[in-house]
């Protein structure tokens, strides 16, 4: 076995995993926020997330068309598409909640899940339809900003691109902001109160509907930001490309302990690292018998193992069931 090679790529794989992990963490926040409050898997979050990416690419393409992409300073462009993506996804998330979930709040838990699946199907093909009429294509490429593609060589075997740094910084900022909102503000207190007990919260004068909308707004905004960063980082999006990352992010949320914000972060990073290490190392370690294609199996097997020993996820509190 080629030990120098195995050791040599280690730092790079670690970094790759962390970047992927932050991406998952950002998407996972949307699932976790909604789950924390409503105990409901918002299956359509993967589409809410990818809509953010589409808003971003549309703005970039229009800027490019107007010849502004090169002249405007890149941080401004980045902030612009991030904000727009967040706004787009947040608006979509709130409307989806209003139309497809709110009427079902009293129904058994699986009912809104199916509704969410319906929303997911609908949105995927709606985006495709709109984009194919509008651009005559629905595989859209993020226009590159050369600055973002620059790489810093940290060591001879480790380098990092500006856009990866952007992902990490933005993710950390958002996670911090979200944590602050939920734990330090009045709105956050209201969200936690609704999560704890809707009826009691409404007796305390909290407008439950508004708080739930707000939860979707925040979750959607996080998803939108993740979408834009996803597009910037990986370059190509289509209406269906949110689905798999969404599934993974949901897994990450469960891994960390769903409903728990730091948990989403931890789960995301653990999953990102697992995937990166599996994809990079499996083939090298088994002499080609198993390869990168097993990374999902590897990730899911670890998930199952972790859940067997910690049935509420890594950071989920172990709630006693009481008689």
């Amino acid at each position: 076995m080629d030990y120098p090679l195995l050791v040599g790529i280690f730092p790079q794989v670690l970094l790759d995993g962390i970047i992927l992990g932050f991406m998952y963490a950002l998407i996972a926040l949307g699932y976790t926020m909604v789950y924390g409050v409503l105990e409901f898997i918002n299956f359509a979050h993967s589409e809410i997330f990818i809509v953010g990416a589409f808003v971003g690419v549309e703005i970039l393409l229009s800027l490019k068309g107007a010849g502004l992409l090169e002249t405007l300073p890149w941080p401004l462009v980045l902030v612009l598409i991030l904000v727009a993506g967040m706004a787009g996804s947040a608006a979509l998330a709130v409307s989806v909640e209003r139309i497809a979930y709110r009427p079902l709040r009293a129904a058994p838990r699986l009912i809104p899940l199916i509704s969410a699946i319906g929303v997911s199907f609908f949105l995927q093909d709606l985006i495709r339809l709109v984009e194919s009429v509008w651009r005559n294509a629905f595989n859209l490429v993020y226009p590159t900003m050369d600055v973002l593609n620059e790489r810093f060589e940290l060591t001879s075997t480790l380098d990092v691109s500006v856009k990866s740094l952007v992902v990490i910084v933005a993710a950390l900022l958002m996670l911090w902001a979200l944590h602050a909102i939920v734990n330090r503000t009045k709105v956050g207190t209201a969200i936690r109160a609704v999560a704890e007990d809707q009826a009691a919260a409404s007796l305390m004068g909290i407008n439950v509907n508004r708080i739930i909308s707000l939860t979707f707004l925040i979750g959607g905004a996080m998803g939108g930001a993740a979408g834009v960063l996803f597009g910037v980082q990986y370059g190509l999006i289509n209406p269906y490309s949110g689905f798999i990352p969404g599934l993974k992010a949901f897994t990450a949320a469960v891994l960390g302990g769903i409903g728990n914000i730091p948990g989403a972060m931890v789960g995301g990073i653990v999953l990102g690292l697992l995937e990166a290490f599996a994809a990079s190392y499996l083939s090298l370690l088994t002499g080609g018998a198993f390869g990168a294609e097993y990374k999902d199996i590897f990730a899911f097997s670890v998930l199952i193992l972790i859940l067997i020993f910690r049935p509420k996820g890594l950071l989920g509190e172990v709630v006693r069931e009481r008689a």
Partner: protein
Amino acid sequence: MAALFEARSVTKRFGGLTALSSVDFALESGIASIIGPNGAGKTTLFNVFTGLYACDEGSVTFRQQSLVGLRPDEITTLGVCRTFQNIRLFANMTAIENVLVGMHARVTLGLWSVLAHTAGFHHTERRLQARAEALLERVGLRRHANDVARNLAYGSQRRLELARALASEPALLLLDEPTAGMTQGEAGALMRLLRDLVADLGLAIILIEHNMRVVMEVSDRVTVLDHGEKIAEGPPRDVQTNARVIEAYLGTRARERRPRAER
């Protein structure tokens, strides 16, 4: 002769909090009540008895067999069944189906008998159904046999829960506040029913109760818990006059009007 049911120095801790500390309890027959202010550890004790919690120290035996480490369903199969403080019926099933589920431990049919509808299956089902009807009759719910549990009146739900517990043919029945939310009249009727059950079936019953009148009327013996410790035990009249009990009760009574649900 050893007691039917015996618990020795049961201790249960949740993190730093000691919910039960070295509680002894024994029952030969008849009705024993456990009383005490809220948070005294009564329901916790029940949960230890029925296998929902594992105790940290001590032993629990039923007919000389240790219950420690057994699963709730195994304990039920041995003949110890319970009801819950906050009614836990199978809300979307009918009353009679609830009772039938209670008999699960007593059904010995295999998968094949069910799939093939063997003679044994029909025979068993008929027997179960007849018994379920009799039990509903006994608790006065025969008329409501085909009503969905969710739609029953509160008092009826309590009685249905009792019938469901009886369905498992227990030798020892643990009732967690069976009269909560009932009128004095309903409570009285229920207590008479319990007395009858003891007389007819030789059932032993442990009660958690807040309604002192009921406790004093029906119990053969009363155990008083406070802060996870047993502070008194004996016939109702003795306990009533026990100084520590009065103190524990008066000390807390002032703070709470109505017993709150412990959940």
